[in-house]
């Protein structure tokens, strides 16, 4: 189980990355490598050139300015988990990250890699949707800003063009009275979730003013359950919210779990996460 032959390049700047991306179809960016390298070892992908972006300093760092938290694409999961800034300003991310695989994977894996891969059963894409994030892509012509809801197009499919590199993701500060909830059901600690839910809302006292519910593992991309969220916000009861998931989610059968069971589990998660958020625990 050894990777096929490929060439390796290590640019030091974005400009050099763009030069590498001119190389054509077989060029792949190597971020944390925690999904790409297994696929190389298993000969499931066969790039001609791997462009290692681990040494591009412009892609690193977590900062806050003007009501926005900006996370560089090459920020590792471990940095998210231990960042005081993230813990205080984006607690949803802080809650989600410990569910991602295991420490040694989180030490290398990056937020940019995770978003660009767009595995529909992973945590961070769902968090981006729940937090109304903006994904920033760049190519030789300049930068583009893509709303998270327009970014994830399908299984492993994003709005990135072949010559794009995802450079950062920006999160608006959730603001006053913001609360969040996160839960997922995985067979084993660190496994991909059968189904998971990232929720971000605003609630003052007993009153919701907004809520975003993003499910993962429940379709070909992270899915916003808008009607269910509305049912919660307008106090129609959790049963109504759960019923509204039927139209919002489209899980598929896999060997471990049927679509029907995934729908059931999504309803259970919805009830639990909303209850936790409402009870303030």
């Amino acid at each position, binding site marked *: *189980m050894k990777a096929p032959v490929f060439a390796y390049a290590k640019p030091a700047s974005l400009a050099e990355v763009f030069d590498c991306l001119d190389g054509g179809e077989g060029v792949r960016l190597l971020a944390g490598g925690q999904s790409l390298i*297994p696929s190389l070892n298993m000969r499931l992908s066969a790039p001609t050139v791997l462009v290692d972006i681990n040494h591009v300093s412009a892609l690193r760092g977590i900062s806050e300015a003007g009501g926005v938290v900006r996370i560089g694409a090459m920020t590792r999961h471990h940095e998210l988990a231990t960042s005081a800034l993230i813990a205080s300003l984006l607690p949803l991310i802080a809650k989600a990250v410990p569910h991602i695989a295991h420490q040694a994977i989180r030490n290398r894996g990056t937020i940019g890699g995770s978003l660009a891969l767009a595995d529909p059963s992973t945590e961070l894409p769902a968090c981006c949707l729940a937090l109304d994030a903006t994904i920033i892509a760049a190519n030789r012509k300049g930068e583009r800003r893509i709303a998270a809801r327009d970014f994830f197009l399908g299984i492993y499919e994003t709005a990135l063009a072949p010559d794009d590199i995802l450079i950062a993701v920006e999160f608006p500060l959730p603001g006053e009275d913001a609360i969040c909830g996160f839960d997922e059901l995985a067979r*084993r*600690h*660190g496994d991909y979730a059968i189904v998971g839910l990232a929720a971000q809302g605003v609630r003052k006292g007993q009153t919701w003013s907004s809520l975003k519910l993003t499910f993962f593992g429940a379709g070909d991309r992270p899915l916003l359950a808008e009607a269910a969220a509305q049912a919660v916000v307008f106090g129609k009861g959790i049963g109504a919210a759960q019923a509204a998931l039927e139209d919002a989610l489209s899980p598929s059968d896999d*060997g471990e779990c049927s679509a029907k*069971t995934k729908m059931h*589990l999504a309803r259970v998660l919805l009830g639990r996460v909303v209850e936790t958020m409402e009870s303030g625990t």
Partner: protein
Amino acid sequence: MSVIDQMKGLTFLDRPNSYIGRSVPRPNAKRLVQGRGTYVDDLRMPRLAHVAFLRSPYAHARIRGLATSAAKAAPGVIMVATGADIAKVCTPWVGVLTHFKGLKSAPQYAVAIERACWAGEAICAVVANSRAEAEDAIALIEADLEPLPVTVDMETALDPGTPIIHAELGDNLAFERTLDVGDVDGAFRDAAAVVENTFSVGRHTGVTLEPRSIIADWNEGEEKLTVYHSFQAPHMMQDIVCKHLGLPEASVRVVCKDVGGSFGIKVHIYPDEMATVALAKILKRPVKFIADRLESFVSDIHARDHRVKAKMAVSAEGEILAIEMDDLTGIGPYSVYPRTSAVEANQVVNLTGGPYKHQNYRARARVVFQNKVPMCQYRAVGHPIAVMVTEGLVDQAAAAIGMDPAEIRRRNVIRDDAHPSIAASGIKFEKLSHQQSLEKLLTMMDYDGLRKEQAELRAKGIYRGIGLAAFIEITNPSAAFYGVGGARISAQDGCTLRLNPQGGVIAAIGVTEQGQGTESVIAQVVATAVGVPMSDVRVVTGDTDATPYGGGTWACRAAGIGGEAAWQSGKALRANILEVAAVILQSTPDALDVREGKIVDKATGVERMTLAELGRVAYFRPDTLPADLKPEFVVTRHYVPKDYPFAFTNGMQASYLEVDTDTGFVKLLKHWCVEDCGTVLNPQLVDEQIRGGIVQGIGAALFEHCRYDSQGQMLNGSMADYLVPMSSEMPDMEVGHVVTPTASSELGAKGAGEAGTAGAPAAVINAINDALRPFNAHVSVQPARPEEILRALGKV
């Protein structure tokens, strides 16, 4: 009290410097925690070549042609070999044994020639200067394969119209066994209650962390083949290599250094490993094959895959009156060589109902061919299936008559004072301790307290379950297991001891080490028997040139059989030492003893001379000894059990868990096991065998499953998709012992390696069903995934 009085009535086990029964650390583990082990892939040798295999993508296909010219021309490639090329030096084999009447299989080649019969069967080999280059070349082979109709589902394998995998065999039935004892129909007719169920145990596989590994090296100058192998039974491998490569025994040496887990996976003859040996012979240089993880999933043997329909008759008083069962198992396209794939089903027939007194039993087992990965013996062969069926029915029977699960077992287990006894299936028990084990378990777990807690929590909507499982385990197999059926697998084992001049002892033994602690136990036994510090004993295993002939380590035979050989050998060496010492010291052997590496006065313990001094005289100044005194400081003794075909052990397990009835998720809270492996040579090693075995059983009960589609493709053949048990989900485990030594040997030790795996799945499944009882829901499928539980609850 004098020392002499204290010594009276003591056995060898109580010798002053006895290591037996003590939890001494394993001397050979230190190098492993330092990363200094020597697994096959760690060996370095000149001109080493690497082999990789093209494997059939189809579950059944005719090989019409292989275009290999591009592969042959690829960088680093040394040879591309087809099945026909390999067959020129390695003959095919048929995995049958004569004592399984009617068992049939077809000739199997190291590399398939005409047909591939499972997805993953090797169809071409590439040898190159590196594994990566071999894989590069494999991608260049153009295989012209004609897909053939597949037989996948064992339920329909025997139906007319289902494709017959080997036309020459006439049908897909590899083996069938039936048994009808007592008056089964009468017992069911008169029963107060009859319970029945269909139990299903999914296919799983061993997933040894070190994959199968082999380096074979043919030295043309010496005319000698050396095989470095991650394997459990080196002498068996030696014999089979000789047979199929046409080599004399003296030309083949098999060496098993550190083995990274085995569990029965590494005791079978694998086609790709035989091909590697053949390629070394052809190329006259060392060739290495390390299975990668993806090919492990489709080429390591799989295990289980049983569907059992069973029922039990019970009286109003809770007496088990009869059991009837029908087992169906699918074994892939070949019966695996040389142990065959009929053993597991045979064990299920033997073991079902085994702990209980009933004498009415009807059983049928059918073993069928299918186009899946071959199935064969894996840790606790047949036991988890028989225990799940039996204990599941016992719990159902208890519920049917309103009796507590502990009480129904109390009433039915074979009494501790009723031995020797014979089970309904005909298996013989020398002495078991079900009653003591059950009571000890119930005390250890505070059964009544847990029942109370369960009831209290249930009122709050928290659903916990307690599951019990009685089990018996086959250990210390005699020649009845394989030898009588024609397999050249040693039932006996030997131990050679040598006293060295400085007083150290070298112990060479036929049983092998795969992490269980074999070498530690042998060192403990030898140190105790001879009378030297354990640090002065060095144990040599896993080398057909260096150890006495033996069977290796499987079926829990290392401690019971190897240990006894070491014990007898140690006693003999000690006697020889004392004979020489008595002459030098002008004493008599009876008046002397060897303790802590010194010759002492037996009565007073006063030191007379060191073994180093004895060694100095015997080896370097024999001229000072009387002419007729010939020190024999090398001795060998052998042992094989003869009184009973097997030394059965027994025990009880319990699981306590919580079911999330909304998600179907199971949280394991605690697990207990009381077992009786006879004399406990090293309590810590036994406990850890039990714990490791339990977790393997839990893996089967909740997680592990080789999933297939209708075309015979395994769907989850990676470690991301095949769920092995990991630490977060596993419980703490408490282990207790009852000690009933076997009288077949002086040490009285029986095996302990498979007990955990035998009973854990049943305990877990019973606990799930106990938790689900308020909902009248029931699962009888392994693995019991959340979806199965939700389905039982009617939620999906």
